């Protein structure tokens, strides 16, 4: 059976140019949007900073109330030795906490999926730690934990590890049910099932958790230091802000704040990038559609 239709190619129907024009318009709109995606936020940000500067200058606001952006930058430069030393301390706590959160979160998630009993026993603790605000636990931690660094780490870890645990647990459980049947049919061992099916299925969930945890680790590190409050050598950025506040050194507060914000942005960008490169070959979230 063969049915043939006489179809005329589109460009012979006299409507060709219109299509081209429409396509061109569409392509142009796409190009403009691609540029705007970068230009608009930068312009708005620049305008806001300029406005901040103008507000300070026009209203002659004294720098111990609100410093202008220029003063913040020059303070950042002048105090660079102290501030960057503190930045390193904060970074160290953040990344160590994040590393331990990853190991603990993933490890516990794997344990939960391997043993219902472990999940029933430990998940209440995980939830209690998660729902109790860290500022209210931190003072206790600093009473019981002698080492200040360990105390800070513990606080940052408590905040960071839950999203990794929760997301990874969800991911490990969300493997395709037909693939799970296939694993049964081929008599896969527990370890093979974990290695070949559950862990890869959990990867996008884990990376989502990591993006949240990265930011939370920083927040945990900063909050813990506020609570710890003791200063001296080896203090992080949070202590610099407290210290500057006592001395009414507002520009320095802003400079330290700027560093914390930048750190947060860098952490978010890095974890997003890791996520993108880990998933770009196969996961929907990382695939660009035409």
């Amino acid at each position, binding site marked *: 059976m063969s049915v043939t239709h006489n179809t005329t190619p589109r460009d012979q129907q006299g409507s060709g140019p219109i299509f081209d024009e429409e396509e061109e318009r569409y392509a142009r709109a796409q190009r403009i949007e691609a540029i705007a995606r970068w230009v608009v936020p930068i312009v708005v940000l620049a305008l806001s900073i300029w406005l901040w500067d103008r507000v300070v200058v026009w209203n002659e606001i004294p720098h111990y109330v609100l410093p202008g952006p220029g003063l913040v930058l020059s303070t950042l430069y002048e105090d660079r030795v102290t501030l960057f030393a503190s930045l390193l301390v904060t970074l160290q706590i953040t990344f160590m906490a994040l590393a331990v959160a990853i190991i603990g979160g993933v490890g516990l998630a794997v344990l939960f999926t391997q043993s219902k009993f472990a999940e029933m026993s430990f998940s209440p603790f995980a939830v209690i730690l998660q729902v109790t605000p860290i500022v209210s636990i931190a003072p206790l931690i600093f009473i019981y934990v002698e080492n200040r660094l360990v105390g800070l780490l513990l606080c940052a870890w408590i905040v960071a590890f839950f999203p990794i645990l929760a997301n990874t647990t969800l991911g490990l459980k969300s493997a395709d049910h037909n693939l799970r049947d*296939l694993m049964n049919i081929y*008599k*896969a061992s527990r370890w093979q099932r974990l290695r070949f099916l559950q862990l890869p299925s959990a990867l996008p969930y884990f990376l989502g958790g990591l993006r949240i945890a990265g930011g939370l680790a920083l927040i945990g590190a900063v909050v813990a230091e506020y609570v710890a409050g003791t200063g001296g050598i080896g203090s992080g950025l949070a202590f610099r802000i407290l210290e500057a506040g006592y001395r009414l050194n507002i520009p320095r507060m802003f400079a330290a704040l700027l560093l914390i914000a930048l750190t947060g942005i860098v952490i978010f960008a890095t974890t997003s990038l890791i996520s993108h490169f880990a998933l770009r*070959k196969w996961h929907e979230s990382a695939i660009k559609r035409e």
Partner: protein
Amino acid sequence: MTVHDRAVLPLGARRPVLRINEVDKTFNGGVVALRRLSLTVNEGDFISLLGPSGCGKSTALRLIAGLMRPTVGRIVWEGGQGSDDLGVVFQEPTLMPWNTVAKNVWLPFRLRGQSFASVKDRIMEALALVGLEKFADSYPRELSGGMKMRVSIARALVTNPRLILMDEPFAALDEITRQKLNDDLLSLKARTGATVIFVTHSVFESVFLSDRILVMAARPGRIIKEIEVDAGYPRGIDWRTSPEYAAVARATSETLTSTLAPDEVH
């Protein structure tokens, strides 16, 4: 090589692969999914389970696959069941999106601890059988629905299993792709001599493909009639358009309609 070495034996000389003996399956809620299912699968058979949804076709396959146990009765593999006796194709392609096509087909070997390099030839051979050798390094998302299904079929037959179970594998595909895959499945069967149990709710698909059609009815799920299709293989467009095909399709269709309760006929 191994994929080809199972010759199609002449009818009557076929050895049994599997016997299902008076099997009942009742689910916890009391749903009788299958009642007194008996079936002997012989080497080289192409059996279709045909019936409305809910008549226990998938349940039958899951029992055979060992994914659940019969409530009553036994399923016996002739000569015992080995680790590579079974290949399964689901309604969805069921591929691992993070693995390439070749790595997906590798899975049954991988789970037996065989390295990719040691079975690469067999993987490529299976991919060639389904016409996808050029896509070995593609990821599933880069393939069309029909191509994904082919990968799934390649994975099911790569170990040269004694029995391949297919649960409505082409139901989600468009008609054109489905016909093409039906043709390809038959030529694949002719070349490998595979034994297949094929679940479908399409009369035409079952008549086109199989040499035995088991018509099933629901509540309780049971086989109500076995229809032999006396047409040899290979089959192609000639079979699809022959009067015999139409006659079998008509008879099958009538059997199927007769199984439905009056309130189910629309």
